């Protein structure tokens, strides 16, 4: 997918565990794990808002667009 989720990078920067983020945001551990793996279909503004608040970052720090490599 062309949109990359850099949640693991931000978690590492903030030295935070996924479980901890789950407790702060109220988003389940499974959902955060799916998001981290880039397997989610879409992300809600409310989810993005909660994550940005907990990690003290901007949406652009979590989401990144990258051109897909052509085979």
């Amino acid at each position, binding site marked *: 997918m062309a949109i990359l989720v850099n949640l693991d990078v931000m978690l590492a920067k903030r030295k935070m565990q996924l479980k901890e983020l789950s407790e702060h945001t109220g*988003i*389940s*551990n*499974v*959902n955060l*794990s*799916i*998001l981290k*793996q880039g*397997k*989610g*279909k*879409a*992300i*809600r503004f409310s*989810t993005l808002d909660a994550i940005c608040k907990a990690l003290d970052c901007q949406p652009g720090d979590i989401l990144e667009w990258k051109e897909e490599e052509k085979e």
Partner: protein
Amino acid sequence: MKYGKHLLAILFIVIIGIAPTYLLKYEGGFNYLLAFGLVILAYQAVSFIFRSNLNWKDFYTSKFNILTAKQTEYLNFEIDQETLFEKAKEMLAENGYKKLIVDNDRHLILVKEPISFKSWGENIYVTLIDQGNGNSQLIYESVAFQVYTWGKNEDNGKKFLQNMEDSFTI
């Protein structure tokens, strides 16, 4: 087509309902009726005892078991088996299924819907199959402990699978 099936079922139920009246007219008819009733009663009693046991899944879901109404749905996900297993448990709980019997080794979940005045109860089996390359398949099997259902179980199954798909919007 759906209503045609229901009409046929109603007709069948009426015939089954009227049949004992004729059967009782004949000598020994009562015994046949009693035997038939006892078989049904014994089956329900056995079901009531063993339905919580995951090892009986194959018995209830078998196509040769004509005393249960079955429904099977398949859904593929681009996600690993473990994550999908956790997700399925979460979604079942969110869909109001409180009593989950879980087998972590077989990645199998059983939801037991109790017997009520409306139905003889239902078992829902959710199995997660690892398809490799981080892909998994979810198999939803519903077993109603009655010969025929009026479509509510099927609707619930479709609703659960739709909710499961929608839940990937996080």
